[in-house]
Every structure is written in C-alpha cells, then in structure tokens.
C-alpha cells in the first residue's frame, strides 16, 4: 500500500446530512447511501471507487457501461440531478444526496421510456454497448430543451461515441423520442 498515506481514519460513514465537522474518510471503505432510480441503497466503498464502478460492481446495475473509464466515450453516461454526466470521472462518495438515474431506471415496469421505444423503432444501435449512454444523453437533451434541430442533436450527442456508426438511426431515434416525450 502507498506509504504516503498516514494512518488516519480507515473507515467511516458519510451521512447525507451535513456533519458537525468535516470528517476525513478512508482510504478504507466508507458507508454511504446513494439514491439510484428512486431507491436508496446503502453501500460500502473506498473513496477511490468511481460512481461507475459503484453502480456496476456494488449495486449490480450493469446497464451503465465502461468503454474508456476516462470520459472520452460516453458509454457510462448517467443522469445526476437530471444532468447527463460521465460516471467514470466522478467518485461514488461525492454523490451522497444526489438523485442518480441509470438506464435501468428509465422504463416504468414493462413500459419502455419513450426514448427507449424510439431507439427500438429506429434501430438506433448495432452492438448496443453505447446505447444506455446514448439514450440517457438523449433524454437529458430533450428535458433541457436543447432540441432545436438536427445540428443541436448532433452537438448534444457528440459526447457519446458509437463505434458501430449508427449515428443516422440514433439521430432519427432522438428526433422521434423527443416527439414522444412531448
């Protein structure tokens, strides 16, 4: 282990309410509570665990994908307080008290979210690995009112790489999904 790390707190709890004094947590596991898809989850993570890894490995929400782990592909896109972010470049411990939405939280039961339905309808994918991220970015751009035309869609979707190159169908899906969401 890194000898530069002094023996201070090795474990702790990060409550969602503000503490009386800022406590130093880690490097060992920290108890946190995350609100994901409307459900509260208690989990134990080291501070170094990214939100992406916490979702995939602790909460078993594997719909969020790891494509680069460096914010360069968008496969790990989730919504945090309704804004699209790359979950690979943020720490799980930083999201106590946030509302997190992953691809698993979009549909209502068997009823697909309108954007998901539009992606199915327009074949907005090939291999499907980038799809959860694409769908969430699309939902965010519609909710934020950025649907001002095809160029705006392309711009807002430019942080989601599709290596299969299904961009044409993704564009059609986003256009249609926006109509369905209206």
């Amino acid at each position, binding site marked *: *282990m*890194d000898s*530069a*790390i*002094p023996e*201070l*707190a090795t474990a702790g709890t*990060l409550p969602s309410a*503000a*503490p009386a004094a*800022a*406590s*130093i*947590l*880690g*490097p*060992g596991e*920290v108890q946190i509570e995350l609100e994901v898809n409307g459900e509260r989850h208690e989990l134990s993570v*080291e*501070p*170094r665990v*990214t939100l992406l890894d916490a979702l995939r490995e602790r909460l078993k929400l594997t719909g969020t994908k790891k494509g680069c*782990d*460096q*914010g*360069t592909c*968008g496969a790990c*896109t989730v919504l945090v307080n309704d*804004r*699209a*972010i*790359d979950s690979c*470049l*943020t*720490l799980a*411990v*930083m999201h106590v008290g946030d509302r997190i939405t992953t691809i698993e939280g979009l549909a209502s039961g068997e009823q697909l979210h309108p954007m998901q339905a539009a992606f199915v309808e327009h074949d907005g994918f090939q291999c499907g690995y980038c799809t959860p991220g694409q769908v969430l*970015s699309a939902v*965010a*751009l519609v909710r934020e009112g950025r649907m001002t035309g095809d160029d705006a869609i392309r*711009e*807002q979707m*430019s*942080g*989601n790489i599709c290596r299969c190159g299904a961009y044409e169908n993704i564009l059609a899906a986003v256009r249609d999904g926006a109509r369905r969401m209206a």
Partner: protein
Amino acid sequence: MKPFRYARARDPQEAVQMVAVDAAASFVAGGTTVLDLMKDDVERPSLLVDINGVAGRAIVRAGDEIAIAALARMSDVADDPEIAKHAPMVANALLQSASPQLRNMASIGGNLMQRTRCSYFRDIVAPCNKRRRGDGCSAIGGENRRHAIFGGSESCICVHASDLAVALAAADATIHTNGPGGTRAIQVSDFYLLPRDTPNVETALHHAELISSVTLSLDPALANSTYVKVRDRAQYEFALVSVAAGMEIVGGTIRAARIALGGVAPIPWRVPEAEAALVGRPATAASYREAAEIALAGARGCGGNDFKVALAANAVVRALEQIGSAA
C-alpha cells in the same frame, strides 16, 4: 487509482485548512481532471477535499463586471445569456470544449487548473520533466505534433489544454483566490507560468490556495469577440490551435483589439504586438493578415508541429474576419 482519503469541506476556509496541512492533498470539484490523472497514476493525492459544498455556482453581472463562481460548471457559464452577450469568446470557448457530459461536470476553477494533454506527461514510464524534474523531455526529438511553437524551454514544450483560459487571457480576466494567507486577485497573465527549468510549477497558486471566482471587466472588444478552434475532429477534442479574439470597431476603424492563442504554448498566449498593430487600422483583410503575421512572428516549430505556425496565423485571420464582419 491508488487509495486516498476523502473529505467534504463545508466552507472555503475549512477546505483550505484541510489541504494546507497535507502537502499531498488536493481539491476536487468536478473531478474530471484530477481523477483522470489519478487513473493514469500521474497524480497521487493522499487526500481529496471535496469543495462542491463550500460555495455557490452563481454567475453575477454587476455593472461592467461579471463574476463567475469557480464552482459554476462549464455548461452553466456557456449557457449564461449575459456571458453569451457580453463575452461571446468565453461562451464559444466553452461550447467548443470537451463534451456535454464533461461540461456538466467540470468546474470553471478546475478547467483553469487542467494539465497538459502531452502524451508523454500522461505515460508514467516516459521521461517527463513536468512529472519529475530532471528526467528529460520526451517530446523534444519525439512525437511533437501537438506541442508548443511559443514559450517552450529545453525542459518542456507542452501546450496548455484549456480553451477557457485562452479566452480569459484575451479578456484580461482576474482570478480570485482564497488561500492560507488570505484572499488575493491574480491577473490571468500572471496566473500561468512558463516552464523555463521548472515545468512542474504551472501556476502562481500556492499549495492549498483555492480559486473562488473569475471576474470579467466588460468592454466593447469583449462584446464583439469570438473563439476559433482548429482540431482533428469536429468536436470533443483539444485544439491544434485556437484563437480568442475581440475587436472594438468604430466607423470601420479598429479602436481596440484582444487576441490570445491556444494550443501553441505552455500557457495561454497573448499577442500584444499584434493587438497594437490593429489599433487605428481599418477593419480589413489586409490588417488582419498583417496582425496574424505579427502574432506568429516569434513562433518556432520543433519538427512535428511546424505546420502550426501557418495554421495559427490563418486561425487569427479567421477569428478577426468573423468579428470584423459582425461589427
């Protein structure tokens, strides 16, 4: 990532104190820079102090000044109507940076503290003076297509990564900080340091000094401004070269000019001689070309990046034309 400790500071003083007592501690806001570098093992902080709760994210116009909270996200600033109206080069620089997701995450303070994208800097087995002084620079004599044509030294020829910093340099923005020694205000021109023989020292910030806000003084040359970015793909990519430019044009004559270049130097590269050359001249293509040539007069390539000299000159012309015709 190596293990580290984590704390959420509640106010700036607490954040500063927590970092001050630990030489290996860092602040974290958006996390997009520091976590990226930690994954590559380039940075190994012992403690990350989360500053997201220490202050607000407001963008406030007061008279001829706009104050941007350091914790405002890039997308907040890019979307702000006052910024778009009074400092379009700032909004344009942000909109041409990163991706929508990253702009939602990255803070303005963090953006200014970005580190170079030099591939040797990010490869811990390659020698790099910025990572460890004295190891040598792999880019000199190596792959240097993306490297500096201005301001490099024998120890480092990297280029600064931030687009925003280039716009802020052209805008003469002021960076306000909160540190162990109290608060201070630093001009962008004094904020970034040339590598010389200490490329590991990149800014005027002291350890534990925290950026609290950035202020812009509004003027006509900032209101009539743009940001031109040339890069290898349409979006989601760092600049090969970029230009932040603003001009005040009255009756066809240039009254004031602001020009800074990005992607060409280890720091945002202001070109005062070119600005001076424009003042008093007619707003014409010939004036722009002449200013571009002056701007690039001292540029020197190191092999792979020789093309940047002409490219940057053309980008200056492009930027001036855009605001020349808009005026």
